[in-house]
């Protein structure tokens, strides 16, 4: 069954690099009005290293799609279908109900859960999952994904990860920079690269196993590709001048990037196997921040060729360049939705930089956030949310906004600055 395969993959991908104490906590700042009432009853268990119910509850609440029932108001604490009295759950206004139980077989855990439609008095989902103690948190996120998909029809993204950059001041105008990867709920942050020189522009490979990023650790810009499971990495570009903005092709074989080795910054495509470089743009102005359309045919990039930064699209073979943004005096750092229908960007007017999303069919831009320093938009792998970085009062933090702008979350990091979030492409 696919599902067990998924769990195995999650375990194999586990990072083995240093743990950090810095953690993200997530606050919902705006939710949707049509949130569905859902109760998740505490799972029956003798002893459990993590509270599975609380993880599931927090995941689903954070999604903004559900109004989660507080434990205190629950009419009973069923853990088996026989104990469920549907009328009592109707009585407290719940549409859906999740129950579960955990048994410990000598360190190996068996987690069972069921999801019910309260009004139809019927089971919608029911699974048993084996999990080691170390993977119970992942198992809980997987259950959240299954419930989310069943009730919304959209893939859950709770078992995904986010990468981001943090920086801390060492005083005297010196800084330390970290590239970190955390679970999608901000828990388990792990530092995968650290330097006293800037680290920038993390980009996940489409299979989620590798990360490309820019590091100035040798006092000059270079692009590295790092395998997450082992920490092994390769320097793939260190030309004179800029080596920046790496972006994986959808087929994982190439990186689009920015080089200025021939003068002005231009977009190139680097074949990772042969190291062959193809020059895509050739303007005298700044061309940077490439992003691939999900079909691999086009590359959208930021260019200053018209005076102010605007978004342009070119064939990923080069040529066929056309400007695609015409409103706002600053449009940059584009990021495609996984289905290619939308393009998120930094949309600036005056000193106000907000996250905008363009409908690729109509080319209309819908501004989703309030600014003034919003940047680095990254789509969730199911396309429902956009993660981005903000700054207020000198502190950098991450936020997420739904594609329609109605749901907002703030991810608060307990130390230093956090920025350049990148949502892992596959859970």
């Amino acid at each position, binding site marked *: 069954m696919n599902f067990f395969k998924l769990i195995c993959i999650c375990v194999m991908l586990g990072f083995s690099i240093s743990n950090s104490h810095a953690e993200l906590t997530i606050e919902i700042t705006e939710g949707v009005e049509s949130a569905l009432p859902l109760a998740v009853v505490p799972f029956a268990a003798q002893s459990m290293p993590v509270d599975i119910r609380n993880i599931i509850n927090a995941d689903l609440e954070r999604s903004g799609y559900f109004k989660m029932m507080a434990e205190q108001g629950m009419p009973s604490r069923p853990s088996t279908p026989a104990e469920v009295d549907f009328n009592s759950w109707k009585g407290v206004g719940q549409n859906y109900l999740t129950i579960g139980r955990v048994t410990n077989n000598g360190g190996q855990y068996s987690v069972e859960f069921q999801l019910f439609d309260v009004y139809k008095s019927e089971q919608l989902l029911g699974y048993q999952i084996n999990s080691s103690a170390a993977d119970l948190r992942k198992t809980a996120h997987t259950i959240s994904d299954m419930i989310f998909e069943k009730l919304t029809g959209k893939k859950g993204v709770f078992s995904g990860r986010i990468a981001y950059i943090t*920086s801390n001041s060492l005083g*005297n*105008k010196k*800084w330390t*920079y970290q590239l970190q990867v955390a679970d999608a709920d901000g828990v388990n942050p792990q530092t995968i690269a650290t330097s006293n020189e*800037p680290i*920038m*522009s993390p980009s996940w490979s489409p299979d989620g196993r590798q990360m490309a990023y820019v590091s*100035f650790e040798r*006092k*000059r*810009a270079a692009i590295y590709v790092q395998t997450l499971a082992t920490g092994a990495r390769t320097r793939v570009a260190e030309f004179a*001048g*800029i080596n*920046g*903005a790496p972006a994986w092709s959808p087929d994982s074989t190439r990186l689009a990037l*920015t080089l*200025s080795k021939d003068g*002005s*910054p231009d977009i190139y495509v680097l074949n990772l196997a042969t190291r062959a470089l193809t020059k895509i743009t050739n303007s005298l102005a*700044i061309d*940077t*921040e490439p992003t691939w359309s999900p079909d691999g045919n086009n590359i959208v990039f*930021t260019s*200053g060729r018209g005076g*102010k*930064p605007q978004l342009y699209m070119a064939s990923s073979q080069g040529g066929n360049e056309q400007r695609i943004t015409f409103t706002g005096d*600053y449009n*940059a*750092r584009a990021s495609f939705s996984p289905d290619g229908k939308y393009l998120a960007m*930094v949309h*600036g007017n005056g*000193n106000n*930089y907000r996250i905008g999303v363009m409908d690729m069919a109509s080319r209309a831009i819908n501004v989703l956030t309030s600014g003034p*320093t919003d*940047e*680095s938009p990254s789509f969730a792998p199911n396309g429902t949310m956009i993660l981005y970085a903000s*700054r207020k*009062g*000198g502190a950098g933090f991450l936020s997420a906004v739904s594609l329609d702008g109605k749901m907002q979350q703030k991810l608060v990091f307990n130390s230093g600055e956090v*920025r*350049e979030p990148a949502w892992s492409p596959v859970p």
Partner: protein
Amino acid sequence: MKLNNTLIALLISTSLLTACSDDKKPISAADSVRTGVGSVNGASTNGLNNAGGMNAQGLAGMNGMGEGSGEYNDPNSPQAKVIYFMIDSSDVQPDFVPVVNAHAQYLVANPSIHIILEGNSDERGSREYNVALGEQRARSVANMMKAQGVSDSQLQTVSYGEEKPAAMGNDESAWEQNRRVEIVYVR
């Protein structure tokens, strides 16, 4: 939008007073002049009094840094090591041409000495675009120096974009200190 002559004179003379290590923090003299620019721009009511006060602050800062010896402990070594830029621009402003020229002359006279031109930007806009903007600034200073005979091999450029701010803060007074090229002498 001009530095007055007093301030330029101040910049250059302060520059020659003491040597500085090749640490890349911007030297206080330049900072003080920069603050001076702010006051000149901001309102005509601030004149010499302010500039004088800034100068005293700058000197105190320099003394406090306790610069050591080394090959750049040279009375001829130009000390103003930061060139500031206008918003979205990589043009060296006329006010800073004498500073660039002073470094260029020094490098022409000392062909074994190398510098790194570190381009930087303010925090507004996207990060990689700001790296590109910082690099254009560094290249613009490099090109001016080359035009005066500085050899290509003496110059290296790097851009950190907005990743290494000189001033924290989210307003124009911080931004104008961050749109800069730092001239770093390599040992």
